[in-house]
């Protein structure tokens, strides 16, 4: 079934078709949320919320538009909204971040059995430092780094998702990278 047909079926309430429609985007949305929010529980809740929003608002989706762009736009906006509300509540989400990432990191390490142990430890430490640095970035910078560097999206895709023009995306991206580099300055020896 084509994407358009899946959208039509989903609009009619066919949940199997909706699941097929979002199948390719679920992990990406979860990872965007995970890296932007910094912990697995919030990422789980927010990515569920994203797909519920997508489903509820399917009738507002223009079929000639890109479904993936629409989904990722909802995902980034929902994450930013969550971060804004979290700040309002003065909720400290960063403290859990490293604990939450430990599992994911550990499973990643297990696959790397042939790697030298010292290098593996260093790599793990580097990842922890990176997560912490991303977590410390301004929300806008975080969004840029996650979409471009972690999700590998093109500038054009990011422009469509964020609604910014290409020039703005490029300049914001540069600022985000410089901010990240500055945040990692004191861990220079790891890189």
């Amino acid at each position, binding site marked *: 079934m084509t994407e358009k047909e899946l959208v039509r079926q*989903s*609009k009619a*309430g066919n*949940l199997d078709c909706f699941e097929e429609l979002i199948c390719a985007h*679920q*992990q990406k949305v*979860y*990872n965007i949320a*995970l*890296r932007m929010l910094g912990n*697995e529980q919030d990422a*789980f809740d927010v*990515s*569920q919320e994203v*797909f*519920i*929003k997508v*489903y*509820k*608002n*399917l*009738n*507002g989706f223009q079929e000639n538009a890109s479904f993936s762009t629409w989904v990722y736009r909802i995902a*980034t*906006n929902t994450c*930013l*909204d969550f971060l*804004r509300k979290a*700040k*309002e509540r003065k909720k400290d989400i960063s403290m859990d971040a490293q604990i939450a990432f430990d599992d*994911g*990191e550990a*499973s*990643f390490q297990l696959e790397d059995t042939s790697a030298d142990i010292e290098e593996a430890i260093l*790599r793990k430490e*580097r*990842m922890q430092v*990176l*997560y912490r640095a991303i977590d410390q970035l*301004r*929300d*806008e910078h975080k969004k840029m*780094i996650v979409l471009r*560097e*972690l999700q*590998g999206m093109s*500038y054009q895709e990011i422009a469509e998702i*964020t*609604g*910014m023009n290409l020039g703005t995306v*490029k300049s914001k*991206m*540069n600022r985000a*990278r*410089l901010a*990240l*580099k500055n945040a*990692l300055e004191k861990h*220079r020896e790891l*890189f």
Partner: protein
Amino acid sequence: MHECEKFQNLIPEYIDGTISKADEVRLTEHLEECPHCQKELEFTRNVMKSLKEIPSAPLPEQFHAELRRKLEIIGTPSKKTLLHYLPKYSFAVSAVAAFALMVMAYHGNWKPAEQQPSDVESLKTVSPVMQETQPDIAKDIVNTSPSSDHIFAANETQTVKPQQTSAPSNNSGKISQTTKPKSPVAPSSGNQKVASPSQNQTPSSGGGSGGGGSASHVTHQETNGATQRKTQGVIFVVHSTVSQKTLDLLYDLPTCQAVDANYYQLSRSYQNKLIELLKECEYSIHFASEASRVDDSAIIIELIS
């Protein structure tokens, strides 16, 4: 070193391949003769490489089942768009909130301080609809203390933050250093917010000079008269349906600051910029009416998608 900093700012673009040809030539020439920048290039390159090595986390096991369960509760997608999910009485509620804010500002500006406690009592009556659908705002209004120290809580931030800038708001073109709100924050109190007499001579600092929770500050209000309490700037109320993109544009406006949750203010001189900017967004601007102009320099705008 300053020159190196300029080149170092180009390094991410250089690695990414988005640098302009002219900058690339200048940077590569500089790199050839600057070991410090070569190290910087190496460091940045390694950081960007490490970012790409971050593994993609798998979906949690119960993700599909949990989502399916939630979707089954929803049933069929609504025939209406997201905009129709606004609370039924959202406009009425917003109008009440805006009106309440306006009344607070009005009383804050023109009533003698000793009359304010009784005025605030009237503000405690919040419509049941508002209490139900926007409990936070309703709570804010209900919780407004009868003490004159708190009546001007919203105005206080308006006054104080511009004072952090080096220029008064009536000299709009010169304001450039105002702190931008990263998130809506409730105004805090503290003696540091007490304006100096010289600062209060400016129309910009007059607005909302009340409040602050210090006895000396209250005295200051009383002695400086009504003109000193003028609310200055544009206050706008942002609904939860306003997109991040719009918020970002608003935050970027000069002098834009958070006053309270969902409430932002802006120097009046940037009102036209605000209107111009909002024309490009999908949001209509609801000036609460001419009556909302509580004085010559304050206006309340609601952003409703």
